[in-house]
C-alpha cells in the first residue's frame, strides 16, 4: 500500500506542474523603472491600442480609424502600432496590457472594459515608464492621461440650440439614451439645466430611444399622436429615427439638435431628405478619439505637447457648415455615424469614408489638431 503515499506526492506534483513548467521563467524580478520623462526623438514609437471590445459599429469605426492613421503620415514613419481586443473581459484586457508591458511599448491607448478594473496593471505600466492614454471608456487610474468629450456640455449645447431657434418659448421633446449609463445621465442633466433657464419652454414628452434609430422611430411614432404641436427636438439618441417618425406622421420638422447619424444630416442638407428639410445641430461622441489619443501619445512622447488630460470640443455640424462628401454622405446608409471625421477649418481631424469603413488610409497627410494646451 506504499503507493498511497505516492498518491499524495503525485497530486502535489501534478498541481505544481504549472509552477514546475514556470521554472523556465527566471527569477529575480526586475524592479519598476522610474517614470520616463525624457522625450524620445531618435526612433519609432511603439504605441498599442487596447480596446475592450469591438462588438458595435462605433468601436469598429474607432479601430478602423486607428488602423487607417497608422498607414498615413506622420504616423506611418513615426509609429509602430498594434491593436488588441479583449471581448469586454477585464482580466483578459489586464493580461493583454501585461503582455504589452512585456513587449516594451512606449504608450498604451486604452478603451477600457471597466473604469477601475485595469487600474492595477495600468499603474504598473506607468511605473515602467509607459505612457497610458485612456479615451471613450476612460479609467480612474491617476497617472495616465485621459481624453474625453464633455457629455454634460453635449446636453447643454443641444438644448441651447433649440432654445435659441424657438426664441425661448414652445413645446419640445427629449429623446434620451440608455438609462443608467453615465453618458445618458450627463447629457440629460445638461439639457435639463438649460430648460430650467427658460420657463416658457415646455418639455411635453421625454422617452428613451435606446441609442438605436429603429427604437427611436418606433417610440416616437407611438407617442406623436398624443402630442401637441412640437416646436423643437432634443435627441440624444437615433435622431434620424425621430425625424422619420415626424415625416410619416405628416408633421413639419421643427428645429432639431441631436446625434450624428448620416440620416439626420441628410435632412440638414440644402436639398433636404424625404422631401423635408430641418434646421439642425448634429454631433456625438467621435470614434476618431482613438486617433486623437494616438496623436496625444506621439506628441507627449516626442516632448512637443505637455502631459495632461484633454477635453475635446464637440465636433458640431450645423446647416451652415454641412458639406456633402465631407460630413454628410448621401450615398451611404442613414445609420452611418458621421462622427468618424470632424469638419471645418478648425477640425480636430479629417478622415475619408474608406478609413471609417475599411481601415484603409486616406490620401495625403493626416493632420490632428490637439486643443491648445
Amino acid at each position, binding site marked *: 500500500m*506504499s*503507493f498511497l503515499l*505516492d*498518491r499524495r506526492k*503525485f*497530486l*502535489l506534483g*501534478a*498541481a505544481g*506542474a*504549472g*509552477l514546475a*513548467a*514556470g521554472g*523556465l*521563467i*527566471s*527569477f*529575480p*524580478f*526586475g*524592479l*519598476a523603472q522610474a517614470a520616463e520623462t525624457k522625450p524620445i526623438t531618435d526612433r519609432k514609437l511603439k504605441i498599442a491600442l487596447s*480596446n475592450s471590445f*469591438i462588438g458595435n459599429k462605433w468601436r469598429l469605426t474607432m*479601430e478602423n480609424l486607428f488602423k487607417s492613421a497608422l498607414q498615413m503620415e506622420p504616423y506611418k514613419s513615426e509609429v509602430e502600432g498594434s*491593436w*488588441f*481586443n479583449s*471581448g*469586454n*473581459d*477585464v*482580466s*483578459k484586457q*489586464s*493580461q*493583454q496590457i*501585461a*503582455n504589452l*508591458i*512585456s*513587449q516594451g511599448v512606449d504608450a498604451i491607448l486604452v478603451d477600457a*472594459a*471597466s*473604469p*477601475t*478594473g*485595469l*487600474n*492595477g*496593471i495600468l*499603474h*504598473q505600466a506607468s*511605473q515602467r515608464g509607459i505612457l497610458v492614454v485612456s479615451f471613450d471608456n476612460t479609467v*480612474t487610474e491617476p497617472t495616465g492621461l485621459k481624453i474625453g468629450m464633455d457629455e454634460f456640455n453635449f446636453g447643454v449645447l443641444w438644448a441651447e440650440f433649440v432654445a435659441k431657434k424657438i426664441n425661448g418659448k414652445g413645446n419640445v421633446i427629449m429623446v434620451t439614451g440608455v438609462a443608467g449609463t*453615465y453618458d445618458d445621465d450627463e447629457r440629460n442633466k445638461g439639457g435639463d439645466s438649460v430648460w430650467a433657464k427658460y420657463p416658457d419652454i415646455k418639455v411635453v414628452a421625454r422617452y428613451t430611444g435606446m441609442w438605436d434609430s429603429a427604437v427611436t422611430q418606433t417610440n416616437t411614432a407611438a407617442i406623436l399622436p398624443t402630442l401637441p404641436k412640437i416646436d423643437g427636438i432634443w435627441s440624444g439618441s437615433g435622431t434620424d429615427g425621430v425625424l422619420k417618425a415626424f415625416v410619416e406622421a405628416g408633421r413639419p420638422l421643427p428645429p432639431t439638435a441631436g446625434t450624428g447619424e448620416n440620416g439626420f444630416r441628410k435632412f440638414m442638407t440644402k436639398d433636404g431628405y424625404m422631401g423635408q428639410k430641418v434646421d439642425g445641430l448634429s454631433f456625438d461622441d467621435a470614434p476618431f478619439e482613438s486617433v486623437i489619443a494616438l496623436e496625444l501619445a506621439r506628441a507627449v512622447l516626442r516632448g512637443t505637447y505637455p502631459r495632461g488630460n484633454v477635453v475635446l470640443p464637440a465636433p458640431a455640424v450645423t446647416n451652415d457648415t454641412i458639406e456633402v462628401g465631407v460630413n454628410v454622405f448621401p450615398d451611404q446608409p442613414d445609420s452611418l455615424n458621421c462622427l468618424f471625421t470632424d469638419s471645418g477649418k478648425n477640425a480636430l481631424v479629417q478622415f475619408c469614408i474608406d478609413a471609417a469603413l475599411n481601415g484603409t488610409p486616406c490620401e495625403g497627410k493626416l493632420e490632428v489638431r490637439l486643443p491648445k494646451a
Partner: protein
Amino acid sequence: MPQPKRKAAWIRLVEQNAGLVLSAVLLVIAIVLYCAIYYAAQGRLPGGFELTTTVNNTMPLVFAGAAQAIVVITGGIDLSVGGVIDLTNALAALYLGDSPLSMVLCTIGVIAVGGACGLLNGLLVAYGRLQPILVTLATLAIFQGLAIRVLPAPGGSVPEAYTAILANFEAPYSLVFIVVLLVVWALVRRTSIGVGIYAIGNDDLAAKSSGVKNLRSRVTAYVLSGMLAAVAGLFLVANATSGDPTTGNGYTLRSIVAVVLGGISLFGGRGTPISAVIGAFVSTMIVNILFFAQIDPLYQSFFEGVFLVVAVLLTAIISRLMRRRAVA
C-alpha cells in the same frame, strides 16, 4: 478465488486522475508554446514580470474555477459565481478601509457574504429540489443587482498593503494562496462532507442509500463554492486596486471553461477542483499565446474557441483511450 494481477500504482493513479493529468499536460504544452512564441517575438524568455502578472491576473479565475468545480462535482452547475464575485468585489472596494483590523474584518465579512450567497443557492437546490441551473441563474441576477446597489458606479479603493498581499506586483507571492487552497481542499476531501460531495455527484439515490447526508453535503458544497467565489472577488479587487460591480460577470462562463479545461466531467462525481486551478492557468496561457502569435484581433475569439474545442476534444479522446486500456 483467483487473484488477478493488480495494476501498478502509478498506472492506477494516472487512470483515476485522468482529468488532472491531462490538464497538467495541457498546461505544460501551453507554457512551452507560450515560451517559444514569446522567444520568437521578443528574443528572450519570459521573466519575473510575465510570471507575476500572469499569476495575478489568473488568481481570480483560479478561485472562481475551484468554486465552480465543487458544485460541478455534485452534479450541479453554479451560474451565480460571477454575481458573487461582483458583490464581494463591490463590498471589498467599499469596506476594506486602511487599518489592518478593518482589512481582516472586511475579508472575513466578504467571505461570509459569499458563503451566505452559496447557502441561499444550496438551500434552494437541496431543499427546494430545484434545478441548479435555474436557481443560480436567478440568484446570479439577484447578486448582480445587489452589487450595483452596494457600489452603483465603479470606484472605491483598495489599500496598497492589501494589494501587496493578494496581488503583489513584484513577485508571484499569491501562489502561496493556491497552496492554501490545495491544503484546505485536501482536508475537506477527508471529511464526511467531502465524501458526500462526491457521492451525491455520482448517484444521488445511491448516496442516500449508503447513508450519506445528501442535503447537508449539497448545501455545504454550495456554501464552499460561494466562499471561494468571494475569495475570487477579493483577488479581483486587489489586482484592480479598485472596485467595479460588473467585472465579475464574465467569471461565470470563464469558471466553467476552467472546469472543462481541467478535464472535470460536467456530469459530476469525478475530478478535483485542483484541475480547475490548472484549467484557469491554461485559459490565461491561451490569451498570452494568441497575443504573441500576433493573431489579428478580429479573429482572437475565433481562435480562442478553436483552442477550447481542440483542448476539450483532446482531453475526451485521451481519457477514452485510457479507459479502453483500463478495461482491456
